[in-house]
């Protein structure tokens, strides 16, 4: 298990959210309301054609967010 930022993962990779790090309070609140809280499983679905934003899979739905926003989401990622 390693703790990494969501923005560093590749397509298909993912893990459980360990913490929301350094995000400003409105972004943090919004991420949590959208279901991204400690322990939530998330994975990278794809990247936009220009590489940003990212599409992730969370609680069975698809959410897109900019890499800058994804940097604040730390996940426990299973080593392959």
């Amino acid at each position, binding site marked *: 298990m390693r703790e990494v930022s969501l923005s560093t993962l590749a397509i298909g990779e993912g893990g459980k959210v360990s913490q*929301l790090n350094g995000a*400003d*309070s*409105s*972004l*943090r*609140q*919004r*991420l*949590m*309301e*959208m*279901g991204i*809280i*400690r322990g*939530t499983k998330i994975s990278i679905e*794809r990247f*936009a*054609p*220009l*590489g*940003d*934003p990212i*599409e992730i899979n969370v*609680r*069975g*739905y*698809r*959410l*897109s*967010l*900019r890499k*800058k*926003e994804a940097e604040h989401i730390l996940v426990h990622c299973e080593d392959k």
Partner: protein
Amino acid sequence: MNTQEKKTDTTTIPRYIALVGNPNCGKTTLFNALTGMKQRVGNYSGVTVEKKEGTFSLGSTEITLLDLPGTYSLISRSPDEKIAADILLGHHGDQGKTELAEKPQAVICVVDASNLERNLFLASQIIDLHIPVIVALTMVDSAEQMGIKVDAQKLSQLLGVPVVKINAPRKTGLDKLLFAIPQLSTSKQTERKWKMPERVEDATTEIQQLLKQAYQYEFPKAFFETLRLLSSDDLHTNGNGSLDNNIRTKLETHFQTFDKLGIDRRAVAIESRYSWIQSVCSQVLHVETVSQSLSDKLDKIFTHKIWGFAVFLTLMGFMFHAIFTWANYPMELIASGINFLGESISAIIPRGDFQDLIVNGALAGVGAVVMFLPQILLLFLFLGLLEDTGYMARAAFIMDKLMSKFGLHGKSFIPLLSSFACAIPGIMATRTIENRKNRIATILVAPLMSCSARLPVYTLMIATFIPNIIVGIFSLPALIMFAMYIIGIVAALSVATFFKKTFLKSAPSIFLMELPPYRKPSMKTVAIYMWERAVHFLSRAGTIILGVSIILWFLATYPKMENATPSQRLENSFAGRAGKFIEPIIKPLGFNWKIGVGLIGSLLQREVFVSTMGTMYNIEDSQSGKSSTLIEKLQNDVDTTTGKKIFTPLVALCLMIYYVLSMQCMSTIAVTKRETNGWKWPAVQFGYMTVLAYVVTFFVYRVGISLGF
């Protein structure tokens, strides 16, 4: 006794019901299915968010349904999303005085079965409000296609409120939903089902009590305010002003305790709610894994590095082409209809001021308004389809990186693209941009995109003064025309960047956007959407446009001059005098007073410049193919004092640049006023564009002169 009972029975039916749900949950489809065409669209006082109400009848009772804007949470901090919370909690508007809307007596909460966990987050907040609630479960069949089955009965039992499965497009389940409404008021309030850790619960109860004492808050408001304070960084204010000192001290003490216990106060309420939701879902959901969904397969293509762009560009190209060319046929039809009407009226009403007012003032104004309808309807047909299928979110996903370089959102792209056809529908299309500052920035720069009304001006100037030489593989006229578009784009993006860095600066704007599964569009939803936009444009912007066109007609007609040529009459009119009056101001740009009259006349619509010039130069009918004579006259016009030609290629170029950058379109001003709900932003828009146009044109003219053109 019996009649007495019946009477109380009908009075307890809630007559004012709010429809609440996440974005993309099928709320609009349900709203349309319930109310049909009995809808009214207005604005909440003091805010730009649209207020949509409709009615339907239940037996003999007429019920008003308020369609609240889609939201993910009631504790959101963004002003646009606060509406739902403010109305449900009975808060007052931002101005503090006016109430946004009456507090609903009951709520229909729309929950997407294919996305149950996140949808239940809002639903459970609604249940916490202790307002009678029915949960309408939508998208049941798409959930089943995804291998998800929902046990509605069990869900109802766990939530403690009625749950009805509905399929709004097919109109199934609606009768059950209606049947549940009269029983709502009798359903009893239950205790909150989700719980936070004990210490937090105790603290919450205490703060709630203090808020009730200090501000006379009722239960749900006190509870939600406590939750907000619990996660807030700012303990100095509450909804209405400064926070009571005693409450702040209490909160700070509690926060220290939480810290010691390792409780994250900002996350605790949301985490506790979600963990209860997860336990609910584990009991009501039966999930079988199915192979990749159709939506995923489509996204493999639609957001692919190469194919994604190909599809996107094709769609946008098609849409743009359609608005640009298809709209021409109905527009010509409208023009000839207006002409025919004018001739018929002229035949009935005797010649004179009154006839002139009706035909050239009022009717021309009506024409100017109605002329926009084909473009507006076409654009909203496409936007409605893009939105309803779910592609709109992908378009924003694809374009976001590019647009974010200019401080804008991916969703700004389509409004700006549409503005190449006409800024009116473009500005109306900015409604999909949730972030207010991004939306204002997009509205402000949209008119810089070269719209179709500028084409006649460009064409006239190019045909008159730009020699048809070949430069490389392109002709000079084509290059100049292309340059005008580029100037507009560069200006729009630079101005947007500037605004977003200065007075529209926002805390790093949040992109977070759901990518809903692709769905078959509902023609009814799209048709109602188009209808709404068209009615709105006609009733709000249309009246302003009509009024201003009558004023412009007046200025160009009075004072009257008998026995004179049209050009003498125009010269003698208020507009002509104004043209002379502004001559000293526009002289540094190389423009004379005749151009000044053209500029004033074309405030109505830019293309009016061509016909005004025609009148100025005594061309009887400049619009119907005789423009070649106008070209000659323009080319040969000589300044009587200096003997030099008035129009040089440089002046023509300057005039074109002026038209690219200036706000020569009062219809746009009217729409900006309507969409931003006030005169502030249209004033800013008119002001910055006029200054920008003047400064750039001045600079180009001076440089041109010094280079010897």
